[in-house]
């Protein structure tokens, strides 16, 4: 079954998508990692970020191997580590 996830984007991810949200299509219920893989496929320029992307599921910062259900709210933020 094909599922559609609406993903909220932050920072340079949002800038690249030119939208606050994107919709990703996955074939079945999978994990956050599958969402990230689909995102990087759309925006290969962020492939080097993939391991470090900060992902929230339903408002909780989540591990990349966390499972996803269709109703889950997902947001992806770039890692932010510089001290200014």
């Amino acid at each position: 079954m094909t599922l559609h996830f609406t993903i909220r984007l932050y920072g340079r991810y949002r800038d690249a998508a030119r939208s606050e949200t994107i919709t990703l299509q996955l074939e079945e219920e999978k994990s956050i990692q599958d969402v990230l893989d689909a995102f990087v496929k759309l925006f290969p320029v962020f492939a080097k970020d993939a391991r470090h992307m900060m992902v929230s599921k339903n408002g909780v910062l989540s591990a990349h191997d966390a499972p996803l259900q269709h109703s889950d709210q997902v947001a992806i933020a770039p890692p932010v580590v510089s001290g200014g």
Partner: protein
Amino acid sequence: MNPSRYHRQTLVKTFGAEGQRCLHKAHAVVIGCGGLGSHSASTLVRMGIGTIDLIDHDTVDLTNLHRTAVFSEADIGKPKSEVLAAHLRTVNHDVAVYDHNITVTKENIITLLDKASIVLDGTDSLPLRQLINQTAVDLKIPWVYAGVYETCGMVLGIIPGKTPCFHCLAHTLPEPKTDAFPIHGYLPQITASFQVVEAIRILQGKSPSGLIIYDAEQQRCETLNVKRNPKCTCCGRNIHR
């Protein structure tokens, strides 16, 4: 302490005279005196922190000036911690301001942090943050992580043993790029303000807010909950105590 100096902030109901006393008794350590650290330190000194240590091994550079507090063209080439401390002593002589023009290492970090009530992160090194975190967990000292990039800022208040530590989420963070990174001039000041709010909340005995993400381009701020990682190799061993 001259109470009239802080009268207006003691009128804030959630702060009051008790909050001011709490701040006056506190000892903050600011590690990194660049964009974040210079603004955080400046705000804490103006608000009446009792004691503050300013630590940075670097010197002021022309490329720092668009985003830092206090520094001027005349300060280029001078040690950041010394310039910042000298200025802040003129801002509020009630505050004990100490500067340390040194690199934080595993050999000196305990000496630098052991009297701290709160540590504020203004570094740009992931290994240093992990060292701060490990030391803070060992010494049970709260600290506030902050990071900035382009138009995004992140802040996380950490109370060892109570909230997730930095290592609980650090596996998701890369080492910062050492070359020039993009950053808007306004972002460190905004992010530093969030950082100071978290620091003061913690000093007042309140719980940290969670992982704060501020996106200036959208003028949006979101707070994510962060859970402790029972398998965390830093704080996980104490999770069931």
